[in-house]
């Protein structure tokens, strides 16, 4: 097993009348375990065409109903550039330039009408995106030759 941690720190000195400071650390464990870490990782950097509708992280049988965690960061710098992130045509939100997200992902292969792939549409310009999937295992395509 591996030990992988994800730490978030939220802070502001002037959003409220007092300082905001919140910090949390989690271990990335496998489903059905209390202390066994995820052992597999996909980490990518891609330049995606404006207005393309892409499966950024595709479904896979071995990913289904497991503990998986997704990180996506929009590396563009123009503040007007953003990427629409969605699952099964349901928009989660917009990642503007410099924004990141970190979320669990429940790959759910219940049929073509319930595509749970993590999708992305770059808007206003091509988007440079870094993304990672920490997972329990994935089904690779079988070689045809």
């Amino acid at each position, binding site marked *: 097993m*591996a*030990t*992988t*941690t*994800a*730490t*978030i*720190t*939220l*802070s*502001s*000195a*002037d*959003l*409220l009348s007092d300082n905001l400071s*919140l910090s*949390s650390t*989690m*271990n990335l*464990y*496998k*489903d*059905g*375990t*209390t202390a066994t*870490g995820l*052992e*597999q*990782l996909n980490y990518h950097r891609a330049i995606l065409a404006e207005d393309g509708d892409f499966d950024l992280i595709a479904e896979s049988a071995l990913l289904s109903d497991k*503990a*998986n*965690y*997704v*990180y996506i*960061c929009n590396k563009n710098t123009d*503040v*007007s550039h*953003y990427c*629409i*992130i969605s*699952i*099964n045509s*349901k*928009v*989660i*939100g*917009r990642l*503007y330039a*410099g*924004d*990141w*997200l*970190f*979320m*669990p*992902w*429940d790959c*759910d292969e219940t049929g073509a009408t319930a595509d749970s792939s993590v999708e992305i549409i770059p808007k206003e310009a091509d988007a440079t995106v870094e993304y*990672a999937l*920490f997972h329990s295992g994935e089904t690779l395509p079988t070689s045809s030759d």
Partner: protein
Amino acid sequence: MATTTATLTLSSADIADNNISISNTMTFYTAGTNTGITETTGLARKKTVTGTNTTLLATGSGIAADVTADRSAKVYIKNINDRGDGRKFVTILLQTVEIGRLYGGDWMLIPWSGGSSNDIEFTASDTTETTLEYTCFYE
């Protein structure tokens, strides 16, 4: 305007042959600007003892009424329960569409497009008391 930042650090010394360390800080801006977000729900806590869907943030009502699809909003959610036997989790949904499972101790931070039919909901995997902490930053 206000300056609110979120810093993520993902690290592992043994998931690969070399150390993995991903770190990023973002500032919460209003949509398409360099102007800081100035509104928040504050940190809140919600409990449930049912295994059915519970609405965490409802679009179009209350403090989330200002969160629409073309505005900027960020949502932080943490499951403060323990992991139980490792199969105790909360499923986070956008209405009927599953995003993922927050096991005990897990957190998430996502952008949120409000608008109609985009409530953030959760379903606990069992009927023991489950508690979530959450906050939304929005314009």
